[in-house]
């Protein structure tokens, strides 16, 4: 068994060189795939930051934040982001006003009042509602909802934030309801028993024990829904309009940040021009807002989740 070269023969139990090498290679490959997600984030931040930086060499931040006009294509161009932000928030507010109460109500019904069988049957439909492409919602908003609203309420434009907001409310309903539902189901059964044992009715158990205990999850649900509403594109592009306006009236045509980005990308602005760079500045603003909301949501969940041991 002694090889001619004089080296000791490998023991049966000692490490195999080629196997550990292939394991190492696989480990490296897997790390590379995970790194792609990091690279993506870095790329997003870098792309947005770089172009926005270039943008702000020509447009002052003060104007960007305080100017009330967004008119990049005019001869005398103005670059105030507030009409776009306001338009976005207007639609988002209406959407939350619809989606949060309905979503929370649905979650309460499914969690506390529906039998497990009924719950199992209804939840897939809510998931489907969440999965419908937003261009379909946009179609519905523009062609079905808007005519009805215009018939009911005077003074509503063809493109208006009200229709878009209403439909968007139903789009975010599943987000609110599923996250809230998970949060409520996570409340331990022992707490419900304790409350019933003290003579609480089901309504009282829900309002005085379950909802307060699940509050962090519910707040997170609302924040996630807000983030989705702010970042949504197709419903607002089709139904809310593409004309920036600084207004609080949901009957007037507006433009959201996302609608402008679409408009700018499908228009023919020469690349590198200021009006083309504006796309990135708006994109950066959008990204910052949604990222902040998401981070706050995560913090809320973390802070309150050590509740019941």
């Amino acid at each position, binding site marked *: 068994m002694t090889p001619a070269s004089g080296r000791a023969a490998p023991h049966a139990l000692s490490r195999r060189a080629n196997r550990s090498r292939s394991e190492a290679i696989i480990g490296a490959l897997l790390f590379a795939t995970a790194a792609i997600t990091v690279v993506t984030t870095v790329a997003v931040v870098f792309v947005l930051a770089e172009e926005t930086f270039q943008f702000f060499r020509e447009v002052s931040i003060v104007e960007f934040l305080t100017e009330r006009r967004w008119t990049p294509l005019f001869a005398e161009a103005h670059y105030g982001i507030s009409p776009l932000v306001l338009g976005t928030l207007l639609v988002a507010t209406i959407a939350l006003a619809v989606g949060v109460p309905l979503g929370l109500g649905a979650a309460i019904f499914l969690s506390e009042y529906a039998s497990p069988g009924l719950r199992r049957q209804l939840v897939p439909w809510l998931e489907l509602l969440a999965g419908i492409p937003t261009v379909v919602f946009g179609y519905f908003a523009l062609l079905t909802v808007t005519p009805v609203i215009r018939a009911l309420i005077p003074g509503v434009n063809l493109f208006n934030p009200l229709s878009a907001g209403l439909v968007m409310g139903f789009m975010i309903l599943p987000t609110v309801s599923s996250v809230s539902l998970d949060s409520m189901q996570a409340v331990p059964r022992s*707490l419900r*028993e304790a409350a019933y*044992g003290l003579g609480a009715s089901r309504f009282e158990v829900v309002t005085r024990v379950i909802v307060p205990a699940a509050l962090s999850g519910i707040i997170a649900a609302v924040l996630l829904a807000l983030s989705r509403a702010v970042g949504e594109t197709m419903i607002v592009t089709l139904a809310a309009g593409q004309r920036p306006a600084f207004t609080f009236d949901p009957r007037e045509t507006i433009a959201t940040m996302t609608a402008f980005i679409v408009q700018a990308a499908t228009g023919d602005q020469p690349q590198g021009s200021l009006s083309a760079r504006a796309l990135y500045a708006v994109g950066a603003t959008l990204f910052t807002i949604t990222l902040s909301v998401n981070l706050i949501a995560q913090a809320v969940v973390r802070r309150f989740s050590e509740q019941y041991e």
Partner: protein
Amino acid sequence: MTTVDPTRTRAREDAPRVGTDHETVRTDPVDADGAVVDVQGLDLWYGAAQALYDVSLRIPRNQVTALMGASGCGKSTLLRALNRMNDLIPGVRTEGSVHYDGVDLYGADIDVVEVRRHVGMVFQKPNPFPKSIYENVAFGPRLHGFKGDLDELVERSLRNAALWDEVKDKLKQSGLSLSGGQQQRLCIARAMATEPKVILMDEPTSALDPIATDRIEELIQNIKQEFSVVIVTHNLQQAGRVSDRAAFMHLGRLIEEGPTDKMFTAPRHEMTERYLTGRFG
């Protein structure tokens, strides 16, 4: 109170034979006006499976009654039948009656929410709400429209639960910040705050360490002046220490009941004797 050692028991030679259609063996039976709760002919089904068979039992006033038996014998089910907690389980059917102060709790127009005000419950694992200590105790009274001095009621309940001195300076802190034993005493205080007549306890110390267990057993002895206690326990020594009266159940049937010391030293039914000597369960 005598501690009974269940290993030194023997069946009495003249113990009556009981057939398959059981008849509960009763020693020194409780009479009607000494009973705070009177269970008569209680049957209970979980869906198609019967869990309680024709149980009749009188719970004496201002005493501690222990329900014992092997796992699955129905003692917890019987306990929960006393405050209608079984109603929360879908598919449960109950027949028979449970009389409390002359009223059948399973009667047609009984408000179950009120039942639970008068018959309180403490659970196996301490389950305080994720609220402040004060709010935990005040929860019940607030529900039922207590209009008087809430601070006084909270303090009184916490004193009765032997917890007041430990928490009086931190009533606003979360109930979950307390130790396991303290949490259970908080749950007892919470149950007492609705001023029930009966307090049900479902294995209240099985999740606690021996020291905490000790304190709660002492507590139970003290509160029986004001409340009647029904306690489910699988710990025979505890039953012997804590209870005045004991009821032994097997497979959904009440086999024997009577004063604890008499039952432990001289059980009259063969099953009871086998259980007490550890042959099963």
